[in-house]
Each structure stands twice: as C-alpha cells, then as structure tokens.
C-alpha cells in the first residue's frame, strides 16, 4: 500500500502524526507530509510513500479519521471505496482553524 497527502484538503490538525508518526509528520508550513524512513517526502501523488509492514492498520486509521479527508491510499482499501471522490474543502461556519496550501498563516476554513 502507498500513501500520499492531498494538501489541498489538509487542515493541519496533526491527527495523522498522532496516530502514526512513523509515516506522517507535520511540516513547517503546518500541513501533513509522509515519511519514507527518515526522509520526509515532497507533497503530491508523485511522491507516495510505501507503507512499512506493521503500519497498515494505523495508516488506515489515520485516513479514516482525517478531518480533511486528505490522506490518499493506493490501492484504495475496501472500506473507502464509497469515498473515491474527495470531499469538497470545508467552508462551514465554525469547524477547524487550520492552514491551507499557499497560506503562511492559520485561517478559518
């Protein structure tokens, strides 16, 4: 299984890093990235990380609890095949205060 972050939808909540710090980290821009061993990979689908053995459940936990729905898994696990289309970026009142791509500061989204 491979994993990458679709940063357009990342809220910077840090939940993924809490659940599986061997695979996820929060960059200086406040958005999530994936690790491959000690290396932090650039964002985007061209830099998907291979999920190390023994981390699969945790990576799925992170993907299924992510408030932005931005953790992409390939191939898509069974349980996510109803969620092939990424959810729209949130515009709700209230909700998360987080960083978005291209922004230097936290904004209300």
């Amino acid at each position: 299984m491979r994993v990458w972050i679709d940063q357009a939808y990342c809220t910077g909540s840090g939940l993924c890093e809490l659940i599986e710090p061997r695979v996820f980290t929060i960059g200086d821009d406040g958005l999530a990235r994936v690790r491959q061993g000690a290396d932090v990979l650039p964002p985007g689908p061209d830099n998907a990380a291979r999920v190390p053995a023994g981390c699969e459940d945790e990576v799925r936990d992170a993907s299924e609890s992510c408030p932005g729905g931005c953790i992409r898994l390939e191939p898509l696990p069974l349980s996510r095949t109803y969620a092939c289309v990424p959810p729209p970026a949130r515009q709700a009142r209230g909700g998360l205060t987080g960083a978005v791509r291209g922004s230097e500061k936290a904004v209300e989204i």
Partner: protein
Amino acid sequence: MLTAEENEVLCRVGPGTPMGSVLRRYWTPAFQLGDLPAPDCPPIRVTVLGESFVAFRDTNGTVGFLDELCCHRGASLTLGRVEDCGIRCLYHGWKYAVDGTIMETPNLATPTFRERVKHGAYPVREAGGLGWVYLGPPGTEPPFPGFSWATAEPDELAVSEMIMDCNWMQVLEGSIDSSHVAILHLDTLATMGSGPRSVGSFDFAGEPWDLDMPVPGGGGGARRPGVWPSEDNAPRIEVENTPFGFHYAAIRDVTGEPGKKFVRVTAFVMPYTAFIGGAPGAVIVVPRDDYTCSSIGVFKVPKGAGLARRATGVDPAVWGPEPANRRIRRPRQDREAMAEGKSFAGFRGGNRIQDAAVQMSSGQMYDRAKEHLVPADLAIIRLRRLLADSVRLLEAGQDPVGHGDGCDFSRITAASQIIDAGQRWQDLVPAHQGTPEPSRKPVAS
C-alpha cells in the same frame, strides 16, 4: 469523518440496502423471549431491519417468526388467533405453521394452492432470554453465536431493552467508546465511590445526588470503590481484529502507581454485540428501522435476581422494562444539581439513561461528515471499517467479516483490571483469537 454517501451506507438497514444486506447475513436478536411466555400466548409484532414480522409460540412451544401480513390479502397476523399448532388470520381464517406452511384456507376448498405456496418464515433460535432470527438467504446461516449466558435460566439473567428514537449507529458507536465513561458517566462512578471527581472545571461539591441509580455489576447505588482506579481521561486505544470482529483495550494511567496500567478490554462481536469491561454481560444494539433501534442489555446475575434487578432507580415516566414502556422519553435534566456540584450530567437513572440522552441528542441520523475524530475514537473507526469492508465483500459474492471461524463464542469476554505496564492486555482474553491456550502442566501430587 465519513462522506455523506458513506454515512448513508453505514446507517440505512432496510431490505436491499448495502448494510441491510450485510446485517441479514448474521443472526439477529429480534425480540425478548419473555414476551412469548407460554404456548398459544398472544403473538407479538416485531420490527427489525426495517421490516415487520409476527412472532408467536405455538401449542408445542415452538417459536415461529413470519412475515407480518397474511399472504392472502395482507391483514396483520398480529391480530390473529394462536391455536392448534399455528396462527390463524382473522380476516379469512388462513392458518400458518411456524415454518410458513399454509395449513388451512377456509375460503378456498382446493388444496393445490396451499401445497404450492408458502408464507415467509425465518429460522429462530432461543438463547439468553432473546429470540434470534436469521433473515438472510436460506442456507447461508453462519455459526450461531452461543455466548456464555446463552443457556442461563431466566432468573439468572437481567434482560432489558431500551427503544431509542435514533439511528442504530449512534448507539452502537457508544457501546465501544471507552473515553466517554469517566466523563458522561462521572455521576455513576461517583455513586460507586470510584474514579475521578472532576471533569475540567467541574468538581463534585460533596456527595452525588442519585444514590439509587443502577450501576454496572451491582444493584441500585452499590459502592464499588475499586472499579475505576484512574483519573486519566485520555485513554490510549489499541485495537486488534479477531475472528468474531475485534477487541480493543482502553489503557489509562493508574493513580499513584506509575508501574501499572488500568486496562479495559471490550470485545465487539459483529455486527451488534459489545462485551464491556466491568459488566457481566453485553450490550446489543439492533436496528428496528433507519430511525429507531433497541439497546438490549443482557447481564448474568445471581440466581433469582433476574427480575428484581430490572426496575431499580429509573423513573418509570422516562423508561421501563414493560413492553409498553420501552421507548425512552427524553429525560429531564436537573440543571440545579449540575450548578450546585451534585451532578455532572444532570440525568438520573444511571449509565443507560445518560447514554440515551446524548445519543438521541445527535438527531435521528447523525451526519458524520461533520464530526472530528481523535485517537480516542480508534475503536469506532475500526467498527466502521469492518462494516464497510463487509458491504464490499458481500457485493463481491463473499461472506462478511466476523462470522467467528474457529472461535468459541461462549468464551468471549471483557476485562477491567490493573496490570503491569509491560504486560500484554491480550493475555486477559486468551480465547479471542480462537487459538488454543497453552496446555497446563500436570500438578504434582
């Protein structure tokens, strides 16, 4: 979070829906055996998974579970007469046996019709105070989940049912949610003389005020000071799949004992049943329809205590065990007691009343696209994954997960205890993976 589409798949249970099709591939506890107490007693109407049925006990004591409406012209068989080894429709007198055989058609003399047509009838098993039915395709029944209390006598079981006006997933997720216990149920722990005395800025000012409430594993207001040896409200959740579904541990620091951990192990048996640490039984959540469910508690009690335990400490104006009183009304919240530091949540009646109040407060069907999960919710994430996996497996022509291959259902249990920080919690529930325990060495005489 789930997308709106995933949420719909998870929540809707009617015939032909993805989840409804999955749930029909498991044995489903549909009614209380106490509601059919004797041969030829009045029949009962049972709504489960969005369909209506009639349940009756025939002259021989055998329980039948049939489509509710007479297959002639659709009158309800719940109005019918239970007599001479069958149930007879009042409208034109058609009579059915427990297996759906049409025994008599008084307004049709020729026997050919009743020999060729059969009424919808479903397999029934009686176990642990409940009538379990199988609503899936004939011949696909999985092994029956014969839990440890399946063969208990009626007076050794406290079976109680709370009918709630909300979608079943709101209640089911609550049954595997350890991190709410020492918060929402702070009053319950305080009544037992255990656990933390505060949540955030709330502190108990003196003793709690609901001293008659039913408490887990005891009678009304029983003191159990050792039951919750922790003030840690952010448990670490570790989840592991099992042949029957999954089990998880909620791991908390132990107050004053740094080398120990307080572990509550919950076993979840697909797709309805949670064995909860600290309670001698299980909570079973069954969808009646998309907007109604039953939360059924089945607890083993000392012989003779089964009936006496049922009704203590709960206002009958809110809920009661009698058939006409099982639908819970929204309980009154005592804001005065909350303000005076006598109660955190303000609901009298113990855990189930507190749970029902908050679970129904999310509305008829909560939209999980609006939620924000945290690591304390990892068991809930796993529950949804197993259910979603099952939907896809069934669509691919395979069995759903958690049928319990190689597993002895009678040995599924829960745990709640202090162990050494380095000890594996799985050691507390050795039968859950279906592997044999290490054989014991013979004891030298």
